[in-house]
Structure formats: C-alpha cells, structure tokens
C-alpha cells in the first residue's frame, strides 16, 4: 500500500517513546509507517475505504491490535460493506491466528451486525468445525460456539458434532463440557430419560477408558440434578463398584464414590449405618493413598475428615 500517495493529505503521528521506554519492540519499518498514518486517521475519526484498507495492512503485521479492529468495524458500518464478505476476510485471518482474541471478537461483532441468518449460522458452525480440525480443544472456538448457539437458538447439530468429536478423542474435555452446556441450556432441557441415557453414556465411556477424567467429572455433575432418584444413584454406585473390581483400581471412580459416601454420612441419622458407611469411605481413602501417589497428602487429608 502506497501510504505516502494515498494519505498525502494526512500528517502522520509518530509514537513518542520518551527518553527511556520499557520493552520497546523492534517494529518492522512497514508497521511503523502504517501505524503513523493509522494514529492520525484514528484520532481524526476517519472512516473510509482507504482506512479500511489500512487496517487490513496493519492486521497483516499485528492481528492483535484491538483499536485497529475497532476502527475497521466502524469503517464497515460507515461504508455499509458486505458483511458476509467481511466474514471471509475474518476467516482468512482466523485460519492463520487460531487463538487470537481480537479475530474471534470481530467475528462476534460482524455476525451480530448481520443478525439472524440461517446460512450465516451454518457457515459459522462450519468455520468452528474447521478450527476444531486444527485444535479440537481451542477454548476461543468453543466459547464462540456457545455464544452463537445461545444467541440464535441454534441447537440443531450440536449433539451430532459433539458425538463426532468424542469418537475422535474421548478425552476431549471441551466436547464433554459442551455436552453439559447443550443439555442444560437447550429449550427442552434435561429430562429424567435424558439423564438415564447420559448416565449410561458415561458408563460406556468409563468402562472403555476408566482413567479418563472427563466422563467422571460429567457424571459428578449430572448426579447432582434433582431428577436423579435415589434408585438411579444406587444403581450407578453399584455399576461403579463393579467397574473398580474389574480393573485393578480406578482412581476417578473411587473419588466419585468417596464423594457420594461422604454426602450419605452427612445425611445418615442411624449411628450404626453411619459407622458402616464411614468404614467403607475410609477404605476407599486408603486405596486412593496407595494408588494415587502424587496426591497422597490430599487423600490423607480426606481420611482425616472421616475420623
């Protein structure tokens, strides 16, 4: 971009570091030149095609400059630019910079400006899935997906996509989190039948990968739901005990049981029963001390709480 010609009427503003700056950066000359003109245009509040082009030139060198993105958004609005084309631009930048906050935020701004459009929403999910192919645990991508789904009530496809990802990697904690998000936020909610199915879904996973923390955490979460009856919980507890027996030991399974036993002790009124459950809990602690050595001090602490 030939700044001197295009911005001939603008007096560029250099940055003033003072006599002894902190952490100055060895900016490339093109960046400094572009920024000198940007500073002047931003101060003047100019929104125009040339400033829009200038923001693209700067973003190429520094995609994290939030003021530059803000001015870009102002230009897009002032010029009534085609926002669907802008999303293509954002995709080009986003596929180079997967974890850049400003690029994801820009997408949110542009999609909000477009408003409800089923094609755009479908394209956004495709973009997010493309990002998942690069990093299936990209926190920004997941946060953006939740925002999109909530804002536009776009719950279709969510469970299918979650399941595809879990097939690829059953340890993808982000996918498990999104599953919980999906069931607890979708309009139809989380029925008792759903809960029973989800419990079975988790059991299938922990039988295959007993040391996978994610389904255990998910289970811990769903058993707190009021629709979980004592019968359902008892059946689950029995399944977990069987699983632990079938394997040498299952740390997450034992920790899961310990939590349930502790809450049972707190609720128990009969002293004999209380003592029985307490003995069982202490036994679990002792096994955790033996098998989860890195957290030995913590399991000793849990044991001390039972005495």
């Amino acid at each position: 971009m030939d700044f001197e010609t295009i911005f001939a009427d603008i007096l560029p503003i250099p940055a003033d570091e003072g006599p002894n700056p902190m952490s100055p950066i060895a900016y490339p000359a093109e960046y400094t030149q572009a920024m000198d003109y940007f500073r002047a245009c931003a101060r003047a509040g100019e929104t125009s095609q040339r400033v829009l082009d200038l923001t693209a030139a700067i973003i190429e060198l520094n995609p994290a400059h939030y003021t530059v993105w803000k001015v870009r958004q102002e230009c897009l609005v002032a010029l009534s630019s085609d926002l669907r084309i802008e999303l293509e631009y954002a995709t080009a930048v986003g596929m180079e910079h997967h974890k850049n906050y400003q690029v994801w935020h820009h997408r949110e701004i542009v999609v909000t400006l477009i408003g409800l459009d089923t094609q755009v929403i479908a394209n956004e999910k495709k973009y997010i899935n493309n990002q998942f192919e690069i990093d299936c645990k990209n926190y920004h991508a997941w946060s953006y997906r939740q925002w999109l789904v909530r804002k536009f009530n776009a719950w279709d496809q969510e469970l299918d996509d979650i399941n595809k990802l879990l097939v690829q990697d059953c340890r993808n904690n982000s996918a498990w989190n999104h599953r919980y998000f999906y069931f607890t936020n979708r309009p139809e909610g989380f029925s008792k039948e759903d809960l029973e199915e989800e419990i079975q879904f988790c059991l299938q996973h922990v039988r295959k990968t007993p040391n996978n923390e994610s389904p255990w955490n998910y289970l811990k979460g769903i058993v707190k739901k009021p629709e979980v009856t004592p019968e359902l919980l008892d059946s689950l507890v029995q399944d977990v005990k069987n699983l632990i027996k079938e394997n040498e030991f299952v740390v997450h399974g034992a920790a899961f049981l310990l939590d349930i036993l502790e809450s049972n002790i707190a609720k128990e009124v009969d002293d004999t029963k209380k003592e029985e459950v307490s003995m069982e809990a202490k036994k679990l602690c002792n096994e955790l001390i033996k098998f989860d050595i890195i957290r030995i001090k913590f399991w000793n602490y849990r044991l001390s709480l039972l005495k």
Partner: protein
Amino acid sequence: MLFPRTEDTRYFKFGLSLLPHYLTEYDTSRMAMAFYAISGIDICGATATAISERNRTDWVNWIYAQQVVPSWNMESDETPKDVSCAVFGFRGSTSSGRPHNPHQTCSESWHHDTSHIAMTYTALTMLVILGDDLSRVNREAIVSALKCCQTEAGSFIASADGTESDMRFLFAACAISYILNDFRGINKALAIKYITESKTYESAFAQGPGEESHGGSTYCAIAALSLLGRLDVVEPYRISLIEWLLKRQQEDGGFAGRPGKVSDTCYSFWVGASLEILGGFQYVDSAANRKFLETTISERGGFSKHADATPDPLHSYMGLAGLSIAQEPGLQPLYPPLNITLRALNHLKNGTKWWR
C-alpha cells in the same frame, strides 16, 4: 538448579531494553510484557541491584506517560457530555501517538486513545514494585472507568474501544480496586454473581457461564474473590475445587490447565496460586513440580511453556512465580491474589497514597 539465577535477571533486563520484531503483536500489551520482567526481577530479589536509579525513575515516568487523563478536574467539575469514562486508566503502550508527558494531569481527549484494564493492572503493580507512591494516579478517573467497563452480566470489558469480557478482566478490575483501596468502581454483588455463574459442573471456574473449567480462569475467579474478601462463596464446594486443582498435576510433575491437556509451565502458577489461596497447596507434590520446571528452564535464562521450546517473557515469569508459591529457597515470597511479592505488597500498604 539453584535460585536466584543471574541468567534470569539478565533475561528480564534484556526484554525490558528490547523485544524482537516477531513480538510486534504484543504492541498493545507492552505494559504486561514489562510487568513479567519487573515482577520477575522482584521475585529474584534483584529489584534494588538490577534496576539502576536512572532506569527506576525513567520507567516510573514512562508508565505515568501511558496514563489516560481526563480533560476536566474530576474532583471539582461536572462530567462534560458525550465523554466515555471507560477510556481512563493506563495504555498498553505508546501506540495512540500521545506526546510523552509523565506529569500530565489534564488533557483533551483523543478519539481511540484508550486504556486497557489489564494494562492498568500491570502499570499499577509495576509502580508499586518500583517503589512509587501512586501520587500521580488519577484514582477518581480509574474508578469511573471501571464502572463503565462492567457488563450487565457482572464481568468486565477491557477497553472503551470494545473488547471481549471475561474472568480475566474481572480479576484485573478487582486487583486495580485493591491497589487503589477503592471498590466503588465495582458492583460487588454483580461481580460475585458472574463468578458463581461461571462455576462449572467440574467445581472449578470457566471464563464465563457455561464455558469450560480452566486453570487460568479459576485463578482469576479465586483471586478476585480473595481481593473482594468473599472467599466464603466457595466454602460449600471448596474440597471439590481443591480436588480439581490437584488433579491438574500430571505424572511428569507439571500442571495442565484442563483435564486431558499436557503440562505447561505457567499452570504451576495459575493452579499453584489458586491452591495456595484456598489452603490446598500443602497437598501438592512440590518436588515433582520442581522436577518438571527443571525441564522447561533455559540455561540462558527464562522458562518456556514445554521442554525444548524457546523461553518467552510470560512463561519465564510464571516459572519463577510457580516456584515462589512452592516456597523455593532463594526466591521472594508472593502475595498470590495480586501476583506481586510480599515485599511489594508491604510497600503498597505502607508507602502508597491510599493505603498508608
């Protein structure tokens, strides 16, 4: 591996004098990059020896030159119309092009010349570490900026130029308020509501409601609650939260940020400090963590994210901060909720304008 190492001090000093061209994307967060170096030097106990008096004075001035000040006297005059108070606080760098003026108290507003909440936090912490009394800080302006930055949901955006809002900036708002000893800028009930709504089914904290539990956002939430004096909020699930944090420690001794992820140097601080605040650090296998950090430390100074990677300012700071939390001999102890040394905290309480 014995501390403090002259290599680390040298690494930080080098970063303060110049950052390479491939860090151009840190232009708007140079204040944070400088904080990693300054606080890093402080953890090494080298603040008095490694920073010359000349640098100390010049750098305090450079920080103050990044303060965005109002065009009117906030204590006596009315707020002019059409002014967004959100701009006040500290810039991340000289990027907007303002003339360098460390003593400016009043100046006309410039379009798009904004502060950034994380830069206000790191600017204030650096001023404290460098022994300044904060007398040139416009507290009234910053308090009104915070008010403008809090969202309806209770979290905070970072800048008047519109950024995302999440737990990081809520923490920054609490840290700023604590340093200035003034919480008028925060609707505390709303902030606590946001924090509790960001608690996940894993009993830890996400960046926002519904999102995934993460070591970084968990630190931000716990530190914020501590600074707000409301750690009682986590009491009902404190043990589950401690358990989640302890489970971040991997077989290699390091800490990961989420289940299913690998160890990364910086979580030794985010997770370690969270545990320390909750009284759960005593259950950590410190020796194993130290062994992990021995693999990410660089002979030439600093730490990297993983073994066999290049050191960067953030991980170099977090490696030392993580060791300090574990009470590594030779390193200065930290005040975990603010992420500054106890020495610096002592200066805050005894040597700055709104605390002494």
